[in-house]
């Protein structure tokens, strides 16, 4: 592939798409897949055939369009509307664009769920066929890699990323430009770029959706990173539980290698970059960077103490850059539009956008991408439509098992890396779960502690034994068997785990407890002192002699 052939491919595909009467895009992933998206796609294909529209109307499978709760979703490119809750029987009417058959099921671009978003990472998701590289190229894909490989020096690329002030989207928020510089400065001749796609937080499916909806964006981001830091080999470490994401990444890598966008002499430059896929096998701790590297090497995914950090000593001892899927997905846009453009979006200290997965007791569930720093209220109530009638908002859980719960009085908090720690939680990878008054916060804390207990790798004692002890205390409380002595014990154990655990899993495991103790202490006290669950969730048997 050369600069000219990239342009030709782009123009040819754009021309082909423009000549079509319509492109019908069917979401066939995650929620829409569970709701029957594939059947709808097949019905539409059959109708195209029956109505003799072959060659005029194209049916494609795509990635996530966002509004998962109303799937299966189908988008018509010609009219730019999304049809919701499509059934196979709707196929004929949909192809005729007969909206009368879709009463209340036509979602216009001005719908609050869509209008409130700013899509950079998900720009193509739901709009391109992720299994065809030319579709990505038609959207301007791989132009940034072309620039990075042929017009920019590695130092210029890193300068651009530093200007953008992009921070790692995996949760910790480390400045991406600084990390790249650390790896680039290392004189080693062998270096690696690793994409952390081991998204294991329950309630989080952002990375998976990016890989399912627009895998080439991540490959392009990785290749640019490789060029910047001087690596020739990349690995994507994907979660074994997402077979569709794995299949689509595999296809994308094959297509990019066949067209010469990955492999030897990218765009006839002296830059060589290969990407291989490694598949995890269900261990949450592998999201931790040193555990992830061990897993790529075919070992048990157990973390090792840092320093040395992976930029110095990573895969097989060589300097390794590890970035999360969402971080890498931002790179092509930053190279295309410039670091200053990116820095102007969102919060000044942590610019850009963030993808959140909305779930739980909320009217509209799904994926949203908003500028960093958008208030929680805007996300939940303007985009998410608020809590459905008949329910009352209690808390929003962010950051998964490492995060915390945000109560109603903090709904106006800005969702960014610096504001959330002030109220005892963290940005995390982007799971956002809304709970109503029927959720018991003690039980929610127990749920997360159970998760950490099961996922502890067992290497360091504070995490291995501490999570079990903390889970036991919380489980006792939910059975109405807690005592006053449990409070100082929970706090002492929390401190111990935070300070002495080897890796992030153990260090962050107490967060859900500390955050619920801080905002909902009364609920813990009711369980212990009154043997009563205010949410009515825990089944606490009445004591002898007590009247119910």
């Amino acid at each position, binding site marked *: 592939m050369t600069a000219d052939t990239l342009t030709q491919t782009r123009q040819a595909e754009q021309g082909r798409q423009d000549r079509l009467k319509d492109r019908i895009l069917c979401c066939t992933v*995650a*929620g829409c*897949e*569970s*709701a029957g998206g594939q059947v709808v796609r097949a019905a539409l294909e059959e109708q195209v055939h029956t109505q003799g529209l072959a060659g005029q109307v194209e049916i494609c499978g795509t990635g996530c369009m966002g509004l*998962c*709760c109303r*799937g299966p979703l189908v988008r018509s490119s010609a009219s730019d509307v999304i049809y919701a809750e499509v059934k196979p029987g709707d196929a004929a009417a949909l192809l005729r664009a007969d909206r009368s058959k879709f009463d209340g099921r036509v979602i216009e671009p001005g719908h609050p769920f869509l209008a409130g978003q700013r899509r950079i990472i998900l720009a193509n998701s739901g709009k391109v066929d992720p299994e065809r590289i030319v579709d990505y190229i038609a959207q301007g894909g791989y132009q940034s890699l072309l620039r990075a490989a042929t017009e920019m020096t590695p130092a210029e690329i890193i300068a651009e990323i530093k200007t953008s002030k992009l921070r790692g989207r995996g949760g910790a928020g480390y400045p991406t430009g600084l990390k790249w510089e650390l790896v680039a400065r290392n004189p080693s001749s062998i270096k690696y770029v690793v994409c952390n796609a081991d998204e*294991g*937080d*329950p*309630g*989080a*499916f952002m990375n*998976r*959706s990016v890989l399912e909806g627009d895998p080439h964006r991540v490959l392009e981001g990785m290749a640019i990173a490789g060029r910047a830091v001087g690596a020739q080999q990349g690995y994507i470490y994907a979660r*074994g*539980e*997402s077979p569709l994401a794995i299949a689509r990444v595999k296809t994308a890598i094959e297509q990019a290698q066949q067209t010469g966008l990955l492999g030897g002499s990218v765009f006839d430059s002296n830059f060589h970059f290969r990407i291989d896929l*490694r*598949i*995890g*096998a*269900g*261990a*949450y701790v592998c999201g931790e960077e040193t555990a992830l590297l061990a*897993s*790529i*090497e*075919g*070992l*048990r*995914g*157990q973390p090792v103490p840092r320093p040395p950090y992976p930029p110095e000593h990573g895969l097989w001892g060589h300097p390794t850059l590890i970035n999360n899927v969402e971080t890498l997905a931002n790179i092509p846009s930053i190279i295309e539009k410039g670091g200053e453009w990116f820095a102007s979006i969102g919060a000044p200290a942590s610019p850009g956008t963030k993808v959140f*997965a*909305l*779930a*739980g*007791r909320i009217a509209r*569930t*799904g994926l949203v991408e908003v500028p960093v720093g958008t208030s929680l209220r805007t996300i939940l109530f303007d985009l998410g439509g608020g809590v459905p009638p008949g329910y009352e908002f209690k808390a929003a*859980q962010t950051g*998964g098992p490492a995060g915390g719960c945000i109560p109603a009085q903090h709904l106006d908090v800005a969702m960014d890396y610096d504001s959330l720690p002030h109220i005892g939680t963290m940005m995390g990878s982007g*799971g956002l*779960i809304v*709970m109503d008054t029927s*959720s018991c916060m003690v039980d*929610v804390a127990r*749920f*997360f502690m159970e*998760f950490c207990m099961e996922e502890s*790798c067992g290497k360091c004692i504070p995490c291995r034994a501490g999570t079990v002890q903390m889970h036991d205390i919380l489980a006792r409380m939910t059975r109405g068997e807690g005592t006053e002595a449990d409070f100082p014990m929970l706090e002492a154990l929390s401190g111990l785990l935070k300070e002495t655990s080897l890796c992030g899993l153990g260090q962050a495991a107490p967060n859900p407890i500390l955050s619920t103790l801080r905002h909902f202490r009364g609920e813990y006290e009711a369980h212990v002192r009154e043997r009563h669950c205010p949410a009515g969730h825990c089944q606490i048997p009445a004591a002898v002699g007590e009247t119910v």
Partner: protein
Amino acid sequence: MTPAVPDELERAISRHHNSGDALIEILHTAQQLYGYLSPPVLKRIARALKLPPSKVLGVATFYHLFRFTPRKAHSAVVCLGTACYVAGGMELMSAVRERRGANPAEWTIDVGRCVGSCGLAPIVICDGEALPRVTAAQLEARLKEIHDGGHVNPDSPG
């Protein structure tokens, strides 16, 4: 055991140049071929990769996705990710456990840690079929139907 396709595993091993780094990849391939990792299969892998059998077993048992017993005729994956848990996933788990209690030889139960369909919580996957926003009563009815109707699990080996 006699492997169904004797050479497939060897081909995968040589594709990875008998390298110990590829152990997890090869375990995935073996599980895909045979449905589970039996002691003879683990020993074969250890020999081919020149690794101690203890290390192969140590790696395999570390990861949740590897199984060491054959799959049963029917399977149920109850998602207990956060969204499904707060939407009543545990009640669904009880329903599934009750069914297995009645026919322990026929049902494999797995806990799903978020299947990525949080918008449709709570969700259970029975024999590969997703049951979105399912209630305990609906689930019980479906489990009984699958069981009585001689439904063939597309995911079950053989």
